[in-house]
């Protein structure tokens, strides 16, 4: 009871605390100087039509590298946390499970039909990240959802962890390597101008941005797949893996 009272007080106080933010802060009238600079110089400087993308991949590239890293850590962390050792007792341990039923014909065929389309869509999204809304993260999520579809629809689907982690590691490594190339060939770490900027508004433009975004897309896709795969693993499958 007393805790409830304190909780009410706390939430009320919190509301009062953020009230000045809500009341006194109006939306921007004009773009902030930095944003204006991005809008004015961005297209010519970096060659990407999507300004959000140039902010994400180059201007604030370090954030994005960090973001990819966060996802990477989360993947590793989930796997690390859920690794099994002998003392672990699962609630259902010792109880024989009935073998799950295979997916119906309709579900199986439908998922197989959708899967390549989803993959293609994902790749499309991250390849065009510098031109249209979307990018590596969005594309990666679509790829992961394609994998999720397989996992959900097909009981016997077996994730090839080696390939997944190979792709994940390589894409991450090349991302960092391209960053370092920026340091050597261009003005600084993660500078996209190591490649020619190309013709504005076309697929092969914006220097290294499409490459970086592709790597991010691959990395995010494989990382999320990995998380999903780890969380999906049933007892039996985990034992098989080991």
């Amino acid at each position, binding site marked *: 009871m007393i805790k409830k009272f304190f*909780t009410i007080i706390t939430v009320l106080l919190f509301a009062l605390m953020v009230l000045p933010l809500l009341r006194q802060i109006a939306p*921007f009238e004009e773009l902030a100087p930095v944003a204006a600079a991005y809008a004015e110089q961005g297209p010519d400087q970096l060659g990407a039509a999507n300004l959000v993308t140039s902010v994400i991949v180059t201007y604030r590239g370090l954030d994005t590298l960090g973001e990819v890293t*966060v996802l990477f850590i989360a993947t590793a962390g*989930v796997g690390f946390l859920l690794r099994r050792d002998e003392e672990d007792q699962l609630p259902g341990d010792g109880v024989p499970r009935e073998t799950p039923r295979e997916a119906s014909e309709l579900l199986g065929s439908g998922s197989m039909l959708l899967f390549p389309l989803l993959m293609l869509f994902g790749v499309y999204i991250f390849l065009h990240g510098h031109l249209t809304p979307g990018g590596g993260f969005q594309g990666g999520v679509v790829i992961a959802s394609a994998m999720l579809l397989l996992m959900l629809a097909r009981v016997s689907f077996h994730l090839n962890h080696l390939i997944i982690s190979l792709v994940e590691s390589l894409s991450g490594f090349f991302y960092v390597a391209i960053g370092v190339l920026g340091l050597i060939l261009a003005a600084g770490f993660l500078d996209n101008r190591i490649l020619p900027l190309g013709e504005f508004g076309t697929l092969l433009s914006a220097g290294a941005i499409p490459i970086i975004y592709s790597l991010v897309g691959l990395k995010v896709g494989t990382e999320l797949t990995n*998380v999903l795969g780890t969380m999906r693993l049933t007892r039996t499958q985990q034992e098989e893996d080991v």
Partner: protein
Amino acid sequence: MSLVSFIGFALILVGLWGMLTRKNIIRIIIGFSIIDTGIHLVMVSIGYLPGRTAPIINSAVDKAQAASQIVDPIPSALVLTAIVIGLAITALMLTYAVRMYRERTSLNIDDYKELKW
């Protein structure tokens, strides 16, 4: 004050309430997710300028006058990062919940206080 930021803060408060009152660990995590969503809304609302379009140079936006036609791209970039990080934290929280459930077969947060004082 904008409607979006108002809704954002309202969500934050709802999430806080959920996080502080629900006993089930999964619900606490959901509370967190709601807070996260609220924050993302608030962030987006900061970057929004009335009457402007997305910060992509295409047929709708003139490259030379982009600065007066587009909304702020920075909060969009930030919110993307924030979403990914929120996702990562949620994933870890859920994993922790799985582990805790394995240890004690309970999802009630009140059952996990053997460490204190």
